[in-house]
């Protein structure tokens, strides 16, 4: 594991840098994750949901559409929080602001920088998802005690999406190229990961395809925890996150070194 031997506690210093920028502009940072779920709940839950008369069977429970939808919104915020941060955010810091170059002249290694960025991406998922969760829980669409574990899933899932984003960041030639991963991965996941409708309505192959997507597992875990459904989803999801994170993290470190060390 020579790829990992240069990672140290010093990556926290980079995490703190990003945290400081975030807190510096906190007013613009906290508002979207607070307002967005409200808009979705009103439009999709109350508006669109009014057309759906039947309850949705999920994990042995029968849920109104809006209750089914709410944990999906938490899952989506986990994905977007880290993915935006470590795609557009990291690329701007690396390419335009030359922040990585500046930090490389200090005792931090490139591996520390990547780890710090990914830790920060996961933190963004944690913050955003916790705000969405609070909104959802206040209106009763997420229940105790399971919901207390959702921020943990948010951080772990954040690590996964941050590592995936960093992989693309190490590959894209310019900012516009992020349209491809967004169009090819993120938007399909947003729509087809059991976020807006239960996967059981899909044909068998569709369900299997969905199970390969990272967001499906986050979405399942968020919904299970919201309604205290304890089944295999949690174990499968945890294993999936661990494996997917390990692979994408190692890949992003390898490719980022290839890109930046000259």
């Amino acid at each position, binding site marked *: 594991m020579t790829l990992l031997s240069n990672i140290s506690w010093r990556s926290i210093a980079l995490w703190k840098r990003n945290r*400081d920028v975030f807190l510096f502009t906190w007013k613009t940072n906290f508002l979207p994750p607070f307002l967005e779920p409200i808009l979705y709940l009103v439009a999709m839950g109350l508006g669109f949901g009014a057309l759906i008369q039947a309850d949705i069977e999920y994990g042995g429970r029968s849920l109104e559409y809006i209750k089914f939808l709410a944990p999906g919104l938490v899952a989506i915020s986990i994905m977007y929080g880290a993915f935006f941060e470590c795609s557009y955010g990291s690329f701007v810091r690396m390419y335009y602001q*030359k*922040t990585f170059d500046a930090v*490389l002249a*200090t005792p931090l*290694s490139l591996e520390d920088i990547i780890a710090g960025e990914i830790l920060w991406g996961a933190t963004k998922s944690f913050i955003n998802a916790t705000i969405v969760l609070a909104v959802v829980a206040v209106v009763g669409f997420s229940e105790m005690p399971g919901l207390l574990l959702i921020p943990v899933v948010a951080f772990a899932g954040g690590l996964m999406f941050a590592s995936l984003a960093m992989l693309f960041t190490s590959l894209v030639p310019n900012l516009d190229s992020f349209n491809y991963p967004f169009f090819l991965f993120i938007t399909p996941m947003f729509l087809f990961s059991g976020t807006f409708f239960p996967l059981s309505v899909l044909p068998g192959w569709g369900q299997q395809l969905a199970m390969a997507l990272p967001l499906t597992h986050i979405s399942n875990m968020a919904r299970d925890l919201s309604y205290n459904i304890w089944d295999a989803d949690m174990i499968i999801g945890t294993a999936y996150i661990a494996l997917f994170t390990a692979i994408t993290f190692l890949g992003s470190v390898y490719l980022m070194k290839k890109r930046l060390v*000259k």
Partner: protein
Amino acid sequence: MPAVRAEGLTKMFDGFKAVDAIDFQIEEGECFGFLGPNGAGKSTTMRMIHCGSPVTSGKLEVLGMDVNDSPRQIKQVIGVAPQENNLDPDFTVRRNLTVYGRYFDIPNGECGRRADRLLEFMQLSEKRDEMIPEISGGMKRRLIIARAMMNEPRMLILDEPTTGLDPQARHLIWEKVRELKRQKVTVLLTTHYMDEAERLCDRLVIMDHGKIILEGRPRELIDRVIGADVLEIDVPGDEMEAYVKERGWQYERTIDRLLVYTDQGQRVVAELKERFSMSYYLIRNATLEDVFLRSTGRALVE
């Protein structure tokens, strides 16, 4: 212990030798210059010294530590002011220093004290709360140098510290570099300005095509390569050139000038005046720029 010691230092990029087996030694406390045309390999050498670029082959020690084995330890005790402006645009002037100090694991209180002292030193105290895009180019350069000093480095690397600055800003930076020299900080400098190198450097090397072609003290190099005086003659004739050549004087013919390098400018002028009509000529002191152009050639490097 030398500040930097390089033996057979080489850097290859895809089969191209950017730095070609160079040897040099920089002593602690001196100001050492790397000069050379664009693409000569000086920035690459600097980047290898501050562990920003891996060494292809050869040996490179910084403050007694090998760059391959101890990059973190080396980076902990040196300061780097890069050529490129990479200040953090997300922070204010002062915050740029304190956040940078944190990368060196300097406690918050100490970071603040050092930042205030360095802002004072670089005459930036009034701009402490401005954001980076709002300050001038000269201030940015000063802030980059201040930032490089946050860890109180034993050796400071200045990569073209005054490029693009107005004369006031250049002189201020020179003053600060001289002050650092008095404090016995080792300074490594690259520059395209020969007057800057002549004023600041105790010793320097001139690089070209990845190799060191000259090494020495600025004054020594001028004496050795050029002599005391340069005689510049406008619109010379071929007969004059033939005469100069015959006399065995060191000279160079450019498109519109004849440059004669000599220790006795007045005597040479008198001799030439007897034989040729010279509409315009100039005797001046030889400078490092003459050394540079003589040794690296006058052709443009693109």
